[in-house]
C-alpha cells in the first residue's frame, strides 16, 4: 500500500518536494537499510557504510564522463556495475578484517574504515578532483535530475523495494538463518560447525552491496561526489537515520530517512534564531538532539515506539494478536548487548 502511495506520489507533490525530500529519503534509506541489515540480522552495528558507498560513488564517477577525476568515459551502466563490484569487494575485505570483532570493537573498527576512506579521497586528488567530481554523467534513462526528477525518483523507489524484498528473502535462506544464529550466540554456532567469521564477513559484503547502491544513487542525485559528502558527519547521519527509524526494524531505515530529510529541509526554513544556539543553519544541532532523545527514550526508534503503542492498544482491546514481521525483530527489543565472543 505504501509502495502504491509512493508510486503515485509524483502526481501529489511538486517536483521540489519530490526531489528534495522523497528521492533523498529513498537513497538515504537504502544506505541506512544496509546498516540495519547488519545490526538486526548480524548483530553488527557498522559505521563503515558511508566509507563503502563512497568507494562505489567515487569509482563510478571516475569511470564516466565528468568534470574532475579520471574522466575515463565509460558507459554509465558499466561504470555503475564496476562501482558496485569494487565497493562490494572492498566491503568483503573490510568484513574479513572486522569480522573477528564484536559489539563496541566492531563499531570502532568500522568507524576507522569510514574515516580512513574519507581521508584517502581528501588526499588523493587524482581520484577525487580538486574539491570533488562534478557533472557526473548518469545513464540516459535517468537524465538530469535537476531538470526532470521523476526518473531518478522511480529508480530510487524500485531500488528501495528490491533492497527491502531482497533482505527479507535473504533472512529466510540458510545463510540468513545461520547469520541470525551467529548474532544470538556465536560460540554455539561455532560449536555447531559454522564458520562464524566467514558468515560475518560475507554478511558485511552483502551490506556493502546494498550500501554501494545507495552510493550510486547519491551521485546520480547530486550529479557530483566530493570528499565533503562522505565525512564523519555523513557517517554519523546514516547512523542517526537508522537509530531514529529503529536499529532492529528494516522498515525503520526509510522511516528514519523520511524524518531526517524532512527536518533537514524544513528546519532551514522555519527555525527561529535563538542567540547562537539555534537557527536555520543549526540543522545538525536539531538532529543531534532528536537522536539523543531517541537513544535515551526509545532504543527501538520511531518504529519501536509505533509497535509498542500498537501492541498496547491490541492488548487492551482484543487480546494478543499474532505478530507479523521479521523473525529478528520480536526478540530484540531495543539496543542490547550482543553476546561477545567467548
Amino acid at each position: 500500500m505504501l509502495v502504491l502511495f509512493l508510486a503515485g506520489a509524483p502526481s501529489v507533490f511538486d517536483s521540489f518536494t519530490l526531489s528534495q525530500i522523497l528521492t533523498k529519503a529513498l537513497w538515504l534509506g537504502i544506505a541506512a537499510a544496509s546498516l540495519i541489515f547488519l545490526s538486526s540480522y548480524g548483530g553488527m552495528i557498522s559505521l563503515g557504510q558511508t566509507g563503502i558507498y563512497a568507494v562505489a560513488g567515487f569509482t563510478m564517477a571516475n569511470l564516466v564522463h565528468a568534470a574532475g577525476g579520471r574522466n575515463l568515459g565509460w558507459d554509465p551502466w558499466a561504470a555503475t556495475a564496476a562501482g558496485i563490484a569494487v565497493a562490494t569487494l572492498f566491503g568483503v575485505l573490510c568484513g574479513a578484517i572486522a569480522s573477528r570483532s564484536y559489539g563496541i570493537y566492531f563499531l570502532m573498527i568500522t568507524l576507522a574504515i569510514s574515516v580512513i576512506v574519507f581521508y584517502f579521497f581528501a588526499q588523493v586528488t587524482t581520484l577525487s578532483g580538486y574539491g570533488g567530481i562534478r557533472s557526473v554523467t548518469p545513464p540516459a534513462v535517468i537524465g538530469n535530475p535537476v531538470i526532470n526528477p521523476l526518473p531518478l525518483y522511480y529508480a530510487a523507489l524500485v531500488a528501495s523495494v528490491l533492497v527491502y524484498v531482497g533482505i527479507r528473502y535473504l533472512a529466510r535462506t540458510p545463510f540468513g538463518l545461520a547469520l541470525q544464529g551467529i548474532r544470538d550466540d556465536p560460540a554455539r554456532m561455532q560449536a555447531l560447525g559454522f564458520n562464524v567469521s566467514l558468515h560475518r564477513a560475507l554478511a558485511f559484503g552483502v551490506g556493502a552491496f546494498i550500501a554501494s547502491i545507495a552510493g550510486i544513487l547519491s551521485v546520480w542525485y547530486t550529479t557530483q561526489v566530493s570528499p565533503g559528502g562522505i565525512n564523519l558527519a555523513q557517517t554519523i547521519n546514516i547512523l542517526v537515520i537508522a537509530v531514529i527509524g529503529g536499529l532492529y526494524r528494516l522498515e525503520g531505515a526509510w522511516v528514519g530517512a523520511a524524518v531526517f530529510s524532512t527536518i533537514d529541509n524544513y528546519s532551514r526554513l522555519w527555525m527561529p534564531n535563538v542567540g547562537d544556539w539555534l537557527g536555520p543553519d543549526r540543522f545538525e544541532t536539531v538532529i543531534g538532539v532528536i537522536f539523543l532523545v531517541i537513544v535515551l527514550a526509545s532504543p527501538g526508534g520511531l518504529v519501536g515506539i509505533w509497535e509498542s503503542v500498537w501492541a498496547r492498544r491490541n492488548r487492551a482491546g482484543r487480546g494478543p494478536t499474532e505478530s507479523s514481521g521479521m523473525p529478528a525483530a520480536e526478540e530484540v527489543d531495543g539496543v542490547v548487548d550482543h553476546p561477545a565472543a567467548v
Partner: protein
Amino acid sequence: MAPGILLALLGVAVVAWIAYNGVQNGKLFWVVTLNGITLAALFFVVAAGFTLIFGLMRVVNMAHGSLFLLAGYIAFTLQGTLYGVSSNLLSGTPATVVSWIVPLVVATIVIGLAGVLMQQVFLRWNQGQDLRQALITIAISVILADQMVAHFGGIAESIQQPAAWPDSVTVLGVHYGFFRLVVVVGAAIVIGGLLFLVIKRTRFGMIIRAGVDDRSMVSALGVNIQVVFAGAFLIGALLAGLAGVLGGTMLAVQPGNDSAFLLDSLIVVIIGGMGSLGGAAIGSLALGLVSSYSNVYLNFGTTDLTNYSILLTFILVVAMLAVRPLGLFGRPA
C-alpha cells in the same frame, strides 16, 4: 601463520627503506623522527584518557574528540578576552607564561567537569549497555560539533605560546620547535609517569585496576563504584582538555580536529589494546612515527606516493588486527 611471516617481511623492508633514507640524509631523518615523536606525545595524552575510561567502564566516549576541541576553543577565547592576546602581529599582545598557563588550567578543569556532568546525566543510568552509551556520546558529539561551529566559526585559530619561551632548540644539529619537543613531549612523559604512579601505587589506582578486571566483585567488596567511575571520567576528560590546549598551541584549533583526534585515539587504542596505558604509549608512538615517516619516505625516486600515506595507517591497523584482534595489550572483556 603465513600472514605473520608476510607482515614480518614487510616490516623488515620498511625498516630497511627508512634506514637507507636516514643514511642518505641524516638531518631530514632526524627532523621527521622528531615530528613523529612529538605527534605521538600529543596522541598519547589524548588517548590515555580515552583508554582509561574505556578500560574501567567499557564506555567508548565518542565525544572525546569534541571535548579535546572544546578545550582548545575555551583556552583560545580566554587568552583573547582575559589578556588581549591575539595572533595579529600588529595589534595583538604576545602571550606571557601566565596568559598561557591560566587558560590552560581553566580550560582543562572546565572540560573535566563537563565530562563528569556528561557521565552523571547521560551515562550513569545506562551502565553496562555499551552500544547505547556509545550512541549517546555520538549524539553529544554531533551537537557539540555544530555548536562549536556556531560559536567559534570555521576559521583555524591557534593558541599563542608564551613569547618568553624560545622558538626552537638545537638537538643533534637540527633546530626543532621548543614547544613541540620540550613542552608537549615533557607533558606526555610527566602525565604518563603520574598516571602510572596513580594506577600502580595508590588505593584509587588499585580500585581502578580491580574494577577493570571485575567490576561487580569490586562493588560487592563495598567500594562505591559510582564514585570511582566519576573519578575515572574526570581524569579522562581532564586529559582530553589538557591535550586540547597543548594541541591547540602546537597545531591549530579548527573544526574537524574533533573527528581527527577521535580517529587518532581509536587507532591508538586499537593498536595498543583497550584500557592499557602502556598500550596507549606504544600505539601512539607507532601511529606518530608511521604517519610522520609515510609523509616523507613514501617517495621512491620518480614515483611519489606520499599522497597515499593515510593507507599506511590503515595497513598498520589491519596488520595489528590480523595478528592480535584485541590489540597489543588488550584482554577480552
